[in-house]
């Protein structure tokens, strides 16, 4: 963060890491104090490039590289004029061409190439598409509003949760303190021996704990749906598009064995096959082996491919 010093007072940035750097339209930075000092009269010249600047044009630097900040500012201004959306264009190709045009303009303005011509271009476009710009501005503001609503709601939700948490903690602490106090009082005043009192105290403390746990899990009648929308709020959001899918149909696997059907593994015992197979010893069954497995395998092998292949 302090790889850059203020170009004027140089040292102050290192000494005071909380100091903010401000950027202007020419792309050069100045720390807050220097801005105050130099632009006390409202306007002056940039220290490095001598372009006439106004104090109001200084903004807090968000990016490490001041040129990025400069470009961001320029882009915002350009986009206020060139505010067409992707559905305003008949084909993707034209939309992409438009975007490329935009980028060229921003690039030119940022790097001070052909500034005059670019500005003329912008003014011409503005004159031609005045109504479209106006319409789009309105649309944009509506979307912004929705987003801001959502953000606001989220923030509110967070705040509420934080407050509740704090309150809960407070309550817990209070309860515990009361309990301790009660114990001390009892020890002072009551006639019963200390051990019994201690035991009672422990029971009470345990009960308190469970009570607190239950309170936490108690379902409060909420005023919110699970998606975060208030119960009485008019929904201004678009529903997501519903995608119709073909349902999955299960089809059992068909295997052609070219032979007579083999009885199931579980049926072998009942059908009497297992009488003719060597019984499984305890050592074998420990590993999960059963004589039915060997029998089934032998029968499968015997029947597989028995019928002549249909070529």
């Amino acid at each position, binding site marked *: 963060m302090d790889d850059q010093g203020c170009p004027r007072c140089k040292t102050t940035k290192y000494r005071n890491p909380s100091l903010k750097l401000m950027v202007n339209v020419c792309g050069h930075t100045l720390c807050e104090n220097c801005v105050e000092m130099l632009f006390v009269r409202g306007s002056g010249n940039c220290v490095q490039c001598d372009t006439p600047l106004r104090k109001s044009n200084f903004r807090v630097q968000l990016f490490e590289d001041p040129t990025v900040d400069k470009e961001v500012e320029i882009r915002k201004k350009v986009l206020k004029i060139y505010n067409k959306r992707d559905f305003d264009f008949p084909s993707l190709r034209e939309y992409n061409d438009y975007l490329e045009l935009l980028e060229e303009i921003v690039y030119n303005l940022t790097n001070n190439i052909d500034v005059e011509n670019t500005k003329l271009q912008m003014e011409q476009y503005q004159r031609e598409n005045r109504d479209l710009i106006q319409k789009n501005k309105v649309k944009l503001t509506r979307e912004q509003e929705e987003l801001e609503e959502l953000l606001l709601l989220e923030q509110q939700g967070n705040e509420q949760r934080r407050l509740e948490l704090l309150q809960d903690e407070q309550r817990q602490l209070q309860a515990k303190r009361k309990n301790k106090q009660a114990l001390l009082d009892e020890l002072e005043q009551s006639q019963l021996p200390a051990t019994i009192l201690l035991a009672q105290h422990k029971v009470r403390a345990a009960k308190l704990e469970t009570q607190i746990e239950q309170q936490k899990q108690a379902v409060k009648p909420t005023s919110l749906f699970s998606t975060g929308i208030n119960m009485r709020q008019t929904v201004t959001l678009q529903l997501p598009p519903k995608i119709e899918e073909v349902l999955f149909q299960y089809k059992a696997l068909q*295997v*052609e*064995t*070219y*032979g*007579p059907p083999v009885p199931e593994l579980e049926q072998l015992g009942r*059908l*009497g*096959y297992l*009488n*003719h*197979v060597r019984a499984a010893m305890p050592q074998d069954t420990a590993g999960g082996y059963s004589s039915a497995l060997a*029998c089934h*395998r*032998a*029968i*499968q*092998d*015997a*029947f*597989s*491919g*028995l*019928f*002549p*292949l249909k*070529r």
Partner: protein
Amino acid sequence: MFHNSSQGKYWIFLNEDDVEQKRYKANQKSRNKILESGKPGVSESKLLERHEEDVLFRHYEKRMVDYCNAFKPAMPKSVVGTAIMYFKRFYLNNSIMDFLPPIIMLSCAYLSCKVDEFNVSSTQFVGNLLQETPAGQERVLEQILEYELLLIQQLKFHLVVHNPYRPMEGLLIDLKTRYPTLENPESLRKNADDFLTQAAMTDAGLLFPPSQIALTAILNSASRAGLSMESYLIECLRLKEDKDALSKMYDSMRRMKTLLKKYELPKAEEVIACKKKLERIHAEFSSLSNKRKRGYEEDGHVAKEPRLTEEEWTDEDLL
């Protein structure tokens, strides 16, 4: 299971002619390659004919089975069956002139032990080669490992082989449970076992599903004992619903029995003559086999120094 295995999809052929055709093609390819290599002294008569290859093939198959039977610890039947199947499949697409059988046969057995989860260490495996000194066994092991990847590649990486032994057990269990007419199915077991061992040496594994081979074995053994099992086929296996299927089944069984009958071990003089021929071919045109051995080098990005020098292969070295 067999019905959706690679064996069922890729390694079951329609009939004996199909199988014969493949072997013939492999033989032709190898002959053409040697003839075209333009080495001095090449002539058609010096190369192995198809029937001579057959003689050698059967001989080495028998040797492999003997080796597996003499194996310590005792090799389960399925491992032997798998090894034989690998041997057959390998020489379906390759000729004996390109790859010498003794090493391929040991590689097949070694691979089959691994695939079938019959755990023997490599030293234990070559320890069963009783004629060799430990150093000799080491050399054999190195050669086995060299050929192993090539073998797997020629098997198209289809390593699971379904043998008819478990289907036979399953059929016996089924007989005991659902066919009380037959009093003592256990008596059929021994003959059926022999049938299966013999069938493994024939091409039956390449033509029929293992369950059919097992069924033929049991039916054959029953008919030898004079018992009729037609009702079993019709009732329990529900073949009566499809008349066609029943007749086809009998047809297959007949073909299988013919295969078994046709099989005979080659005579000793034939074997010796063919072996001599093979050795001569190998000695004169050995450069070809040198290149083919290291299958993975054909990719181009693995370069391996030749670890071994080519040795004069004689059979007596091994068994």
